Every structure is written in structure tokens, then in C-alpha cells.
């Protein structure tokens, strides 16, 4: 397992380097003087051309591009993502501040989608080509086709404005008032998790149907094991490997979707911070969020790969 972990970590190095290079290039491709991405516009307007040139030198912006990237990368490794133009606070600090909000939302949406998607997929696989299977498959299709923006709007209209059961937006941290917090996060989490629920249900169904037709399941049944034990102890464990892959990939959908959902439900998370920063032309902030989310996504997929290897020894030794 240690060898597998080392191989996976080493294979990630070029990808992480390319990701950082992409984000650095993104900053340099933004039209205009890169210096104006580092100082507030009102401050820049008060400076003379000579002062601007000196600042450019101080920030190393007249160095060759490779040197600029190396300096930027060294700062990055030390946790320095630069300062926000709007607030002049460190970008990393602002992201970390909002991370629990997005984390809570992502976690709840995953819990909702997995707790519905997996049982529904198992149920459909146990009764293939029946009404149960059709209902489950249609639910999954609706889930993967449902736009976040439509579902969020419909939920707010029904549950907040018409039935007045839920708040239409805002956020309360789970640690300060758990029940109140759930009330605020339930609709956004449901919106965010619907797509994942559909994908998980579909892959669980396909994977379970394949596994249930394998010889070892017939052997388990022939041994006289109860159906529940056959399904949950023997079939689901092996069927879960492709499901895990889909979960890893779909986490990207949840992270990306949080940009939209946090905007609709006025949730002060990382996604909302990024969207507001785009309109405020706070480029270091956008750059920081894009890099941070890419690295989180890579880390999540690494964890998924490790769980994958723990579940299936063939992967470790291949």
C-alpha cells in the first residue's frame, strides 16, 4: 500500500506543477498591466509613471517570465497566494475563512445524494426491468438533467415563498445552531446534490447488475447465505468501486456548482467569494480560488484512489 501511495503521489507532481502553471498564466493573460492586479486602482491612479515602474521592479514584474513563475511558486509553497485587491487581506486567509461554509454545504449535499442514490441503485438492480427499476431510472435521469438554477428557483418559490417552511437564503454555522443551520443549508444542499444522486444511482444500478451475475454471488447463495448478506456483504462491496470513481469525479460538479448555488441562496462561501471577485476585478482572489479548488479536487481524487486500492487489492499490485 505504501508503494502504491508513493507511486500515486509521484504521478501527481507534474499535474500539480501544470495546474499551478496554468493558474499563473491565467493571471498574466488577463488584459492590462499585471501591476494593476496587485494594487487597488484608486492607489494606482495617484502614482506617477516613474513610481509605477519602481513598483513593477519591486514586485519583480520586469523579471523574465520563468523567474516570475518560480518566485510566484515559491510564495505559493509557503502559503502566500497574494493579497486581495478589494480588501488588501491575504487571499489564502479569505479562502480559509469561507471554507467551512462551502465544506458544510458540500458534505450535506454528498450525504443527501449518496443516501438516496445508492439504495435507489441497489433497489433498481435487484428488480431490473420492473416498475421499480423504471421509476428509479427516471428519477436518476431527471437528477442528471436538472439545472441547478432551475431547481434552486423552484425550491425557493415553493418552500420559502409559497409554503414559508424554509428561509430563501442566508447561512448559520452548524457549530453555533445545528438545527437552524440545517434549515438554511437543506435546500442549497439538495440543489447541489441532485446531479450526483442521479449519477450515483445509475452507476450503482449498472455495477450491481454486473456483480450480481458473477459466479461468486451464485456460490454465496448456494452456500445458503441470506439474501441481505449476499447483497450487502458480498455484492455491494465490489459494486462500490465504480461508484467511488463517479463520486470522485462528481465532487468537481459539487465544487463548481457551489459557485452558482451560493450565489442564489446568498451563502457566504468560497464560490460566492470567487463570483463577486470576478465582477470586482479582484484577479488575485479569482486566481487563488481557482487554484485552491483545483488542488482540493486533486486531493479528493487521490483519496478516492487510495480507498479504491484499499477496497480492491488488485489495483495495489497492478
Amino acid at each position, binding site marked *: 500500500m505504501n508503494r502504491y501511495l508513493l507511486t500515486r503521489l509521484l504521478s501527481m507532481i*507534474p*499535474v500539480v506543477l*501544470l*495546474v499551478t*502553471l*496554468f*493558474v499563473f498564466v*491565467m493571471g498574466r*493573460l*488577463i*488584459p492590462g498591466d499585471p501591476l494593476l492586479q496587485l494594487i487597488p486602482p484608486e492607489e494606482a491612479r495617484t502614482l506617477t509613471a516613474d513610481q509605477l515602474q519602481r513598483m513593477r521592479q519591486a514586485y519583480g514584474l520586469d523579471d523574465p517570465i520563468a523567474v516570475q513563475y518560480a518566485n510566484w511558486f515559491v510564495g505559493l509553497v509557503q502559503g502566500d497566494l497574494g493579497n486581495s485587491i478589494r480588501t488588501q487581506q491575504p487571499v489564502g486567509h479569505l479562502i480559509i475563512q469561507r471554507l467551512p461554509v462551502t465544506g458544510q454545504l458540500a458534505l450535506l449535499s454528498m450525504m443527501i445524494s449518496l443516501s438516496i442514490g445508492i439504495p435507489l441503485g441497489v433497489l433498481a438492480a435487484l428488480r431490473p426491468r420492473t416498475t421499480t427499476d423504471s421509476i428509479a431510472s427516471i428519477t436518476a*435521469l*431527471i437528477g*442528471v*438533467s*436538472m*439545472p*441547478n*438554477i*432551475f431547481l434552486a*428557483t*423552484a425550491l*425557493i*418559490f415553493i418552500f420559502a*415563498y409559497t409554503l414559508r417552511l424554509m428561509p430563501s437564503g442566508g447561512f448559520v454555522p452548524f457549530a453555533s445552531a445545528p438545527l437552524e443551520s440545517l434549515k438554511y443549508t437543506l435546500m442549497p444542499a439538495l440543489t447541489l446534490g441532485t446531479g450526483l444522486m442521479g449519477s450515483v444511482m445509475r452507476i450503482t444500478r449498472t455495477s450491481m447488475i454486473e456483480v450480481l451475475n458473477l459466479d461468486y454471488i451464485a456460490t454465496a447463495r448456494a452456500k445458503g447465505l441470506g439474501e441481505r448478506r449476499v447483497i450487502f456483504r458480498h455484492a455491494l462491496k465490489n459494486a462500490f468501486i465504480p461508484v467511488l470513481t463517479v463520486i470522485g469525479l462528481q*465532487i*468537481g*460538479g459539487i*465544487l*463548481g*456548482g457551489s*459557485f*452558482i448555488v451560493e*450565489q*442564489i441562496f446568498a451563502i457566504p462561501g468560497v464560490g460566492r467569494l*470567487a*463570483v463577486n471577485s*470576478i*465582477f470586482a476585478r479582484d*484577479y488575485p482572489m*479569482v486566481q487563488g*480560488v*481557482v487554484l485552491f*479548488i*483545483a488542488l482540493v*479536487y*486533486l486531493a479528493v481524487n487521490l483519496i478516492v484512489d487510495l480507498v479504491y486500492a484499499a477496497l480492491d487489492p488488485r489495483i495495489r499490485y497492478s
Partner: protein
Amino acid sequence: MSTNLSTDTATTAPSQRANRTLLRRLIKHPQGVIGMTILSLVVFAALFAPLIAPHDPTVLNMSVRMQPPSTEHVFGTDHLGRDVFSRVVYGSRVSILAGFVATTIAAVFGTMFGLLAGYLEGRFDHVIMRVTDALLAFPELVLLIAFATIFGPGLTMAMVAIGIAGIPVFTRLVRGQVLSIRGREYVEATRSLGSSHVRIASLHVLPNVLPAIIVWSSLLVGGAILAEAGLSFLGLGVQPPTPSWGSMVNQGNQYLRLAPWMSLFPGAAIFFTVLGANLMGDAMRDLGDPRMRGRLK
């Protein structure tokens, strides 16, 4: 030369036949028919929008602002008195255009890179695959937001960005297919007959990857439509006054309590279009998968 021609015919004909058979089977697939019908209706609305829409989608009429659905305005009117139905009809143009243009960009460039990486292998393959891995490390919407930050908002930017975001997936899939095809005996035979790499790749390998590319493209269309709607919703896609479903939902949300029809109708339009695209994509995937053919008969 005559030998080359005969091998060309022998290898391209089955793939053309496969494409035709795929289409014929699609017409008999119930999900495929529903998906095709929904998509055809949206494409029809996009093509004949001026004939279908009862009002000009951009003309303001403050005397009828935020009117609920009626016989005069079947989907009601918005905060500026514009007919929501007409805007939904015109909005289909943006969604269909974005869906197909972005998918075409992803399919063309993804196929090109995947073909080159899989066929040439070695250092070129290594570089292409590492870049692909790096691009796949960004969740799609995050990558789109990065592009929007660089190039600014607009429909062209949205289509190109969605297309670029789709390239890595195609590259990976096509490369995998090419690796399995390039070692086959007929490709070896063509190579031993002296055919050039370009000729082998374009005439013998590509046609055999084509059915899979068509299936993947059909699966991507729905995602591209959703992505465009998401970008327009955030204000990074189509700019006013051009009607687009995503921006209509965004504007409508500000008046959701008073005029829910402003956002619910364009939202439903996105849902049904993506549902149609997904139904068709699923049917194409089922028909392209030999394991599913027996079950579908």
C-alpha cells in the same frame, strides 16, 4: 495504389454502415425517439423563432410589466414588459448554438489531440496526456470561470470556453480507442503496404473511432447547454438584451415572489432541453454498446 484503395474501402465501409445502422436503431429506441422529438422541437423553435414568437423579445412595454400568463402573453411578461414566451423561444437559439458549437470544438480538437497522442505515442503522447490531466483537475465550471476572467463575458467566449473544457475528455477517450485500434492486423497490413502515417491515421484509424465520437458528442451536448446556462446566469455568458435562458432565470429570481413565471418558464426550458439531449445521448450510448444490443431487441 490500387491495393491501398481496396484496403481503404474495406475499412471505411463497415464504419459508415455502423453509423447508418446506429441512426436506424435510434429511431426504434423509445428513449431515443422522445429525446430526438424534444431536441427537434427546440431546434425548430430556434430556426423559426421569428415566425413562432408572437412579440419582439427585446421591445420594452412598461404598461404590461410583470403580467401573469394570459392568452395574450402565454408565459406572462417580465419586469420590463417583454413577452416571456417570445424570449424563451429566442433564447433557444443561444442554448442550441452553444450546445452544438461547444461540442463541435471539443470533438474536433479532442479527436485531433487524442488521435495524435494515441498514434504517435512517445514524448508527444506524454506531454498531451499530462496537459489533459492538468485541465481535468479543474472542475468544469471553475475552468469556465477562469476563461471568463481572462477573455471577458460573451456568447463567443462561453462557447469557446465550454468547448475547450470538453477537449481533455475527448482527448482521453479517443486516445484510448486509437491505442486499441493501431495494433490491429489491418492497420499493420496497411503500414506494411507503405501507407503514410497521415493516410493510416485519417483513413483507417479515424473512421473506426467515429461511431464512438458521435456517441460521446451526443452525451456532451446536454452538459454544454447546462454550462452555458450556468455562465449566463452568473452574468458571464450572453449579455443583455439578447435573450438567453440562464440570464432570464437570473433576472427572474429578483422578482420571484411577485412574478415567478419570469424565471420558472426559462428554467423549465433548460431542463427539458437537457433532458432531451440526455435521453438521446443515453440511447446512442446503449446502441453503440454491443453488450446492450441484445437487451434492447
